[in-house]
């Protein structure tokens, strides 16, 4: 494990706004999708405005340890149930065994309503574990059913009332995949985590509110967790970035060790292993990817 030199707090606050101007890039094939479920990314900074899917009644999102189901605030309950049922059927058992958090917002739901949801979920081999709402009546109904509740104390992500559906049959991944090499002068900015299938050349920049993964050589500037997510990681097959930033911490790559001089046959090429960078104790740490694999002796994991 090696520690990169000089962490400094300089980004952090202003980088959230930085993420909004997406259009530096020539590629517009795909609207910016939902950010992944981490709390830091559910901030208003993520670019929801550009999503083009039709308005929805039910929204299903993957969450660590389960899914969250958001029901539209207005609209007929039976329609919502039907929509939920359709989505779950379309998922063809993708969520089987999952625990669901039901997000109801200010809607006032009766005990019966919640029971219907529970039956629907059970039909799809899922369990309803938590009901989140701001309405008292709903919470009481949930408690009566023996469900745990939550009052939505943390501010709900500011979403337009007509939020898009996440079509489960084609799950909208929280990853943006860039196919090809990023060349000098090219900037890739996304609210989602970024996967680059190709190289990031010196002079190019990859900026994401989530993780940055490079299936190739990372030689440019990578900024993960640009909206402040300190859990974000940067990983690359060949890891030699000009500069590395995770959330508000920046680091410059250490000098690459030159292969020792010597005759041709004895000269060893420098060892190349995929590496991962993350923040540990407020500093950016880079280590070979297989050091952090489960089953390996732990060094200093987060």
């Amino acid at each position: 494990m090696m520690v990169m030199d000089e962490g400094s707090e300089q980004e952090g606050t202003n980088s959230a706004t930085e993420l909004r101007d997406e259009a530096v890039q020539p590629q517009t094939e795909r609207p910016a999708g939902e950010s992944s479920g981490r709390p830091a990314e559910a901030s208003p900074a993520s670019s929801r405005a550009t999503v083009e899917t039709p308005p929805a009644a039910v929204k299903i999102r993957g969450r660590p340890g389960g899914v969250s189901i958001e029901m539209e605030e207005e609209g007929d309950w039976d329609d919502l149930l039907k929509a939920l049922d359709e989505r779950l059927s379309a998922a063809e058992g993708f969520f089987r065994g999952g625990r669901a958090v039901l997000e109801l917002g200010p809607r006032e739901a009766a005990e019966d309503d919640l029971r219907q949801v529970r039956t629907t979920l059970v039909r799809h081999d899922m369990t309803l574990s938590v009901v989140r709402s701001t309405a008292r009546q709903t919470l009481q109904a949930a408690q009566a059913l023996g469900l745990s509740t939550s009052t939505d104390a943390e501010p709900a992500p500011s979403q337009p009332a007509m939020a898009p559906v996440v079509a489960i049959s084609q799950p909208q991944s929280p990853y943006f995949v860039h196919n090809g090499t990023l060349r000098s002068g090219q900037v890739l900015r996304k609210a989602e985590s970024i996967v680059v299938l190709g190289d990031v050349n010196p002079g190019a920049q990859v900026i994401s509110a989530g993780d940055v993964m490079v299936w190739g050589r990372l030689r440019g500037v990578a900024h993960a967790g640009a909206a402040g997510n300190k859990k974000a990681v940067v990983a690359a097959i060949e890891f030699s970035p000009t500069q590395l930033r995770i959330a508000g911490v920046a680091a410059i790559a250490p000098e690459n060790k030159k292969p020792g001089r010597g005759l041709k046959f004895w000269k060893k090429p420098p060892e190349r292993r995929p590496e991962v960078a993350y923040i540990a104790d407020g500093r950016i740490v880079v280590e070979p990817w297989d050091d952090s694999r489960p089953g390996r002796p732990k060094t200093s994991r987060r």
Partner: protein
Amino acid sequence: MPGTVITVTSGKGGVGKTTTTTNVAVALALAGKRVVVVDADIGLRNLDLVMGLESRVIYDLVDVVEGRCELQQALVRDNRVESLHLLAAAQTRDKSDVGIQQMVSVCKALSQTADYVIIDSPAGIEHGFQSAIAPSDRVLIVTTADVSALRDADKVIYLLERDWKHQPGLVVNRYNAQLSRDGELRDIDDILDILSIDLLGVVPEHKSIVLATDRGQPIALNRRHYVSQAYHNMAQRVMGNNVPLMDFREPGFFNALARLFGR
């Protein structure tokens, strides 16, 4: 069938666009092709100097565009190679005097009679670069092994792929094989690693190229000199023939020995 329009560009200045243009053109002409070279660097004309044709230029590109002469009148024929012609740039004007459309139509007209139209692009990525790229069927990127040249080449490749859908070919100029062999400077593989485009040719660093360029006697005319091989090979590859990379060591006793020991 109209000929091919090839633009030679680099992004960074001083890496050898003009020298490469001249010598590839000469090599193509010596291979029997009809070649016209166009200097697109209006205001900073020097292709005619490098080709040694300065004194014979009467009309230039701006004269053609503004209708002061016929296109054929403005072409300067090289007296050493029969099938090589030059269309010089104006020294007294600037790049905005020739629009992109005008450049395209001039090159289209030239390609009716020539096999290859080779455009020497100005440095940079501004208007002059745009109008040099617009008419081209193929683009050659000239770079040296320096970081700065590579960085600029990379940017130019990005622009070409984004705006023009070009897949450029790479010319590595002033290549110092000794430094690369010693591991001091990046070698061809490292350069291709970064730029990841097709290699069209490698020109070794050699003082005779500098001198020949300065005297207006393109090195490619001197077929007996070993470095001129680099340009002739490049010309072959432009014509679609597959030739191996040349040996970058200067011929000689010690180098022959070194070769024997695999260094």
